[in-house]
């Protein structure tokens, strides 16, 4: 089975307090912020790796399985791909583009072209990027490909014949399980990296993964330097035209200082009368 994982390089979200907005609200300034892979995309890489390995030997993909990672971005985004290769992915594709010339629809159309070329059995991707928070690429991609899709996945079970998946989706008040025939598109949410969220009928049922995306072990980091990473201009995909543009960015209103109460009775009274919390 071949899995394609699209990745996006974003400004370190943990540094969110330092993101600034250019005068006039024209754009977000990310200067000086450390770039990191979009966390949901890292979870997608982790999911793809768990689907294609025996969890007791995470260094190798199962025979016949592979994971390809792809990104559209600046030259430096190849670092993001290398990181995924160091986690265990097999090969990387960088299509050089400037983030400002992309929107969700164009990214989805371009990914459809990558899918045509790579012919994966499954696309696993983050539910959204933490910078734009658009949450639409996975959905548009599935529509364009005419593939079934499941969003906000919190669990994936690959069937023994590898022809379908059962995806657990988090919804208000519970979980919906969907069965999708492959090929399909899955977008993942944060609980997909819980210790037992992925089943592939190869990793023993008793195996517990560590919570979260795996660290790249040092030997794999060194090995990743030799893994194939192809670079091509975005234009080579033959799609163009942005349909949405950003009008204005505004910072959230600054938080007001809290108030101090002198004792518990006053706290209770204010919670009841002003906050209506009791």
């Amino acid at each position: 089975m071949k899995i394609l994982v699209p990745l996006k390089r974003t400004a370190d979200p943990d540094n969110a307090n330092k993101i600034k907005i250019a005068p006039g609200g024209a754009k977000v300034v990310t200067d000086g912020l450390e770039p990191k892979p979009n966390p949901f995309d890292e979870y997608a890489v982790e999911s793809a790796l768990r689907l294609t390995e025996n969890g007791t030997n995470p260094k190798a993909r199962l025979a016949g399985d592979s994971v390809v990672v792809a990104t559209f971005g600046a030259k430096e985004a190849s670092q993001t791909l290398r990181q995924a290769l160091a986690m265990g992915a097999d090969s990387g594709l960088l299509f050089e583009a400037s983030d400002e010339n992309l929107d969700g629809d164009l990214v989805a159309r371009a990914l459809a072209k990558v899918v045509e070329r790579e012919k994966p059995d499954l696309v696993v991707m983050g539910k959204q990027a933490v910078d734009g928070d658009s949450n639409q690429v996975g959905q548009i991609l599935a529509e364009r490909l005419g593939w079934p899709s499941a969003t906000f996945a919190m669990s994936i079970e690959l069937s023994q014949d590898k022809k379908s998946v059962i995806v657990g989706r988090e919804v208000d008040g519970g979980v919906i399980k969907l069965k999708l025939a492959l090929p399909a598109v899955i977008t993942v949410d944060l609980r997909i990296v819980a210790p037992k969220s992925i089943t592939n009928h190869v990793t023993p049922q008793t195996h517990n993964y560590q919570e979260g995306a795996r660290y790249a072990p040092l030997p794999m980091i060194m090995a990743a330097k030799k893994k194939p990473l192809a670079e091509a201009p975005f234009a080579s995909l033959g799609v163009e035209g942005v349909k949405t543009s950003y009008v204005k960015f505004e910072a959230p209103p600054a938080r007001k200082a809290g108030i101090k109460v002198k004792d518990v009775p006053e706290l209770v009274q204010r919670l009841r009368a002003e906050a209506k919390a009791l």
Partner: protein
Amino acid sequence: MVRDTARAFSEKTLFPNAARFEREEKIPREVLAELASLGLMSVNIPAQYEGAEAGAVAYALAMFEIARGCASTAVTMAVTNMVGEVIAKFGTEPQRERYVKGLATGELVAGAFALSEPEAGSDPGSMRTVAERKGDRWVITGAKQWITSADFAGVFVVWARTGGGGTAGISAFLVPAQTPGLIVSKHEDKMGLRASSTCALTFDACEVPEDALLGELNGGFKIAMMALDGGRIGIGAQATGIASAALDEGVAYARDRKQFGKSIGDFQAIQWMIADSRTELDAARLLVLRAASLKQAGALFSREAAMAKVFATEKAGIICDRMLQVHGGYGYTKDYAIERHVRDVRVSRIYEGTSEIQRTVIARNVLR
């Protein structure tokens, strides 16, 4: 990327638990196993022996990050890497297959380095432990002191006298744990690095086969000195990492703590302490990285390693002390991590060659 892995592991697994490791006086076995599986126990070991083969610079960067999270874990990692490297460099093929691989995969848990003796610290030439021939075997008798990880290490490099007096009559041996006659004795009750284990060893007619000899007969002193050159880079990086953690604590405290109606970080007295510390920390880091890059390039690096070690460890001591001063009275309590950093960093001026020995190495090299 090596730094990213070490940092992520350190921040998630070590930093939040370092105080607990200290209280329990041990590093959990799972943590050591994870260090091995991430390649952090074999950073500079060839891939053919399951090592990461990431080089000496990556090793220094990784050590820096691990020490930021937990200095005790860092010293355990430093000694294991040093033992692995020394066996990879001087060992025979079967020795490498067994021990270097075993350390890299985590099967042997940790390596131990048994050079110092109760009466032979900075002066290994005065060592009294002897190894005597008995047929085709060696019988080791004597005592060793300050042995990191002795109670769980899978293999010990042991130096013993095989020839005449002085440094020319010393050989190195590889002794697996559980060898009869290898007795782990007193567990030291240390001031700092309390989660790392430090023990005394007794060799009571400890018999090892002929092929336990590491390198040439009577060539042990050279092996020890070469290992320690590399080890000094590790300890320089470790001290820098501890100081970096201390500086983070001090800066956070200076921002939060208010006196006279403003953050104490607004006072020049505090600002200067932070400015000096940041500058010295960067200088220390650069010296460590220079020594590491010389080592990686295959150049001579003894002098540079000694310079990095003495500068980094002494400045790290001052930085930790200053950051405790920033904390005021609270820094003198166990409620804040800074007191641990002050205790942990102190030994870095003593082990792996004291500051005085480093200066001797540097001066000898300069005056030669």
